[in-house]
């Protein structure tokens, strides 16, 4: 598998470390239920999913990848820190 790093271009997945699902963090006062879901409960969709990958052996950027779990198609990859982070 290759991942399209926004800085380095397409690179072998060996250069990356998987860093989990890209979730929106709940507000501090969102309540225990929202926080339990954020910490422990994960969807397992057959379809597009957003996830973080860390380009440890390359530019060291964290990137947010949109990947289809059914087809492995990667439709998007952006810098997790925003465009100015390059």
């Amino acid at each position: 598998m290759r991942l399209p790093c926004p800085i380095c271009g397409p690179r072998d997945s060996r250069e990356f470390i998987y860093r989990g699902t890209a979730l929106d963090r709940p507000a501090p006062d969102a309540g225990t239920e929202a926080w339990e879901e954020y910490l422990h409960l994960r969807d397992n969709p057959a379809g597009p999913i957003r996830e973080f990958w860390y380009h440890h052996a390359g530019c060291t950027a964290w990137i947010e990848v949109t990947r289809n779990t059914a087809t492995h198609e990667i439709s998007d990859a952006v810098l997790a820190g925003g465009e100015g982070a390059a």
Partner: protein
Amino acid sequence: MLDLTAKTPCDGLLPVSHGPFTLTEIVPKALTSIAPFKGQAGAVSDTLQSAHGITLPSIGGATGNGSVQAIWFGQGQYLLTGPAPDGLDGIAAVTDQTDAWATVRLDGHEAAEVLARLVPVDMRPAMFPDGTSVRTLLGHMTVSITREGEGYRIMAFRSMAVTLVHEIAGAMEAVAQRL
């Protein structure tokens, strides 16, 4: 007081040659990492231009040659080889790396064939011309590889010097056997 003898990272390991391939050690005078503060990359580049005659390279590139060189070294980070930089106070994080890296140079016709056994990036001259640079893997090690003329300059952590030489020399020997 003890008078200690300074050793280079690849002391006793290099040079090595197999067939057309040679692996030699490069000992830079100084290595300095430069991480420009937010929005200061232009100012850092101008300062380097006036102090050392080189600009910051673009992503995946290297500028200068021989005695003074600036290599792209990752997200927002550059490595200056040769002189210690002047005048970067307040515009960049500057760290001395001189003793932290082992630097070797791989030469030989079709040396890309040797690296093809170790590196998951296309190192053929057409894809990786003079003046390009990547951070990638060599075996299981993170390295910086820069194309310089016909050869490749490869840098790994100093503590990995023995592994670095072992891996590359092994691939050199294996490829040389097949020529």
